[in-house]
């Protein structure tokens, strides 16, 4: 610790160079933290998905519908504990840019299948009594200043009513939240009654986009999924059933091999950073050769000199990495939360790996200048040869 003053003095001999290097390292580690934040958020999203909840959709694509008549057949399958269904309204509030996720659902079945949706019982009861009722996510309600009892007028870009109107009025009967025990998700959707919506619309009546099937155990989930698909295999509306976890994983994989891209980018950044910090440390030691010679003259051994150079490099790299990772851990979950992806913190493993990379960059950067300092001939250096 008593040598800290020498390390500090060496670091701030050229303040501008040190600050610029520090900023470069911070940017590199901020990028690392952010990108790993993205991939870890995806991983977290997968982890938070249920593997005992099956998602039944059209085998053709995501926007094809399935008949509501499938409901009793699915409910009748052994091992099925509950079934919910969902039809998207594709609506916006006030302006098309305010697109909202609005789902027409069979209320009780849907809430049974999604226990993470938490609504006070009196509000559920009010929803049951209100044909035009809506359950609104708390985050969405706060965003628009909506309260229970408010009438919300939406316009659908797909579904019109019998009178040709694309305007849909809903009365807020309850405000739901997500149970934190199931994960950190933003409550930003609106759920309305499927029966009301289906009767009022003129397109695609009697059809739903998705079924959600609750099964008792993970072991039986795959078999039940296969039975559902087999049941409708030869119908006009064939199904594809996956548990939620596999479905989310498949959607993420459709984007591409994110891990590979992230690792490639981070690898390139750190490779460049290695040269940058290595060059900074080399220059810093080279221009201090007379000073290092004085230290050696006064009895500082080679090990101590090498230690001073390494400590300087470590202080530079690890402190910058620490600042960057702290910033990433603080700010980026909030950004993801605002995007509705989920606001989980950076995993401790990402932070630990980041600090380990910081130590590695510091040590590798310090090796050439430490070698230079260690080989320094005091007599020649004092004679400025």
């Amino acid at each position: 610790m008593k040598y800290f003053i020498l390390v500090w003095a060496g670091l701030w001999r050229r303040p501008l160079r040190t600050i610029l290097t520090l900023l470069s390292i911070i940017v590199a580690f901020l990028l690392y933290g952010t990108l790993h934040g993205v991939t870890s958020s995806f991983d977290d999203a997968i982890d938070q998905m249920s593997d005992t909840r099956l998602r039944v959709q059209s085998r053709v694509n995501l926007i094809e519908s399935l008949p509501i008549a499938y409901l009793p057949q699915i409910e009748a399958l052994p091992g099925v504990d509950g079934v919910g269904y969902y039809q998207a309204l594709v609506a916006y509030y006030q302006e098309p840019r305010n697109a909202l996720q609005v789902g027409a659902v069979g209320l009780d079945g849907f809430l049974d299948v999604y226990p993470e949706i938490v609504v006070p019982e009196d509000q559920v009861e009010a929803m049951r009594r209100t044909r035009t009722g809506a359950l609104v996510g708390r985050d969405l309600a706060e965003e628009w200043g909506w309260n229970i009892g408010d009438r919300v007028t939406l316009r659908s870009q797909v579904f019109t009513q019998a009178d040709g109107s694309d305007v849909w009025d809903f009365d807020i009967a309850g405000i739901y939240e997500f149970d934190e025990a199931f994960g950190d998700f933003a409550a930003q959707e609106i759920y309305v009654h499927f029966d009301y919506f289906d009767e009022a619309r003129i397109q695609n009546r009697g059809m739903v986009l998705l079924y959600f099937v609750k099964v008792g155990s993970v072991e039986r989930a795959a078999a039940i999924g296969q039975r559902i698909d087999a049941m409708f295999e030869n119908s006009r509306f064939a199904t594809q059933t996956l548990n939620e976890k596999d479905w989310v994983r498949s959607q993420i994989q459709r984007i591409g091999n994110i891990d590979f891209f992230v690792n490639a980018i981070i690898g390139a950044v750190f490779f460049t950073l290695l040269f940058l910090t290595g060059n900074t440390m080399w220059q810093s030691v080279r221009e201090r050769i007379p000073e290092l010679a004085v230290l050696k003259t006064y009895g500082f051994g080679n090990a101590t000199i090498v230690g001073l150079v390494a400590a300087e490099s470590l202080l530079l790299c690890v402190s910058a990495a620490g600042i960057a990772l702290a910033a990433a851990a603080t700010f980026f979950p909030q950004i993801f939360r605002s995007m509705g992806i989920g606001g989980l913190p950076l995993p401790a493993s990402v932070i630990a790996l980041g600090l380990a990379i910081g130590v590695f960059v510091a040590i590798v950067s310090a090796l050439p200048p430490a070698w230079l300092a260690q080989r320094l001939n005091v007599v020649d250096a004092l004679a400025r040869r």
Partner: protein
Amino acid sequence: MTALVTIRDVDKGYVRGKQRVEVLKGLNLDVETGEFLALMGPSGSGKTTLLNLIGGLDKCDKGEVVVAGQRLDKLSSGQLAKWRARHVGFVFQFYNLLPVLSAERNVEVPLLLTKLSGKQRRQNVRAALELVGLGDRAKHKPAELSGGQQQRVGIARALVSDPTLLICDEPTGDLDRESSESVLQLLELLNRDHGKTVIMVTHDPRAAEHASSLLHVDKGVLSAEPLETAA
């Protein structure tokens, strides 16, 4: 008086490019404890080489170098470093202070190698700076001090660990006459009142007058008089 420095039959040469240059040849020297020895001679005569051997910064090719009872030519570089930390204080022509550190932090540098507590180190630093007359400049950085003051800081750094021997390589070579005189009086005081043995290389005959003895070095040979005068 006992000999603090004993040098016997020392040879020392360097390889410069493809050529080997013999600097010292069969050199003998005794320096008594408490002596203030001035070494004079033309550039390239071997003064600094001799100083480096006495200070344990370099090793001779042949012969014996004994300082404070220790055969320096037998020590490894690591052992020499530890020996220097205990026994020698160095004063350089260009001060060689660390520019980012204050005067007191510069003076503290040799004490970092000791087991003294922070409080003890600060006390010793204060005493050393008071001794060289810079107690009020402790917080100043080298760039905020004159050349003479910087050299005084250098002297304070050299004596803060209470070494047996002070080695001064042209300590007034970069100073004006007034500052030189002040620095030389300080070295004289350290020798006379504090018992420090001082070996000083200088080009300046006026500086050499402050020493208690004077030797001339020319072509690696020591003499009491300059070679041309002696001849």
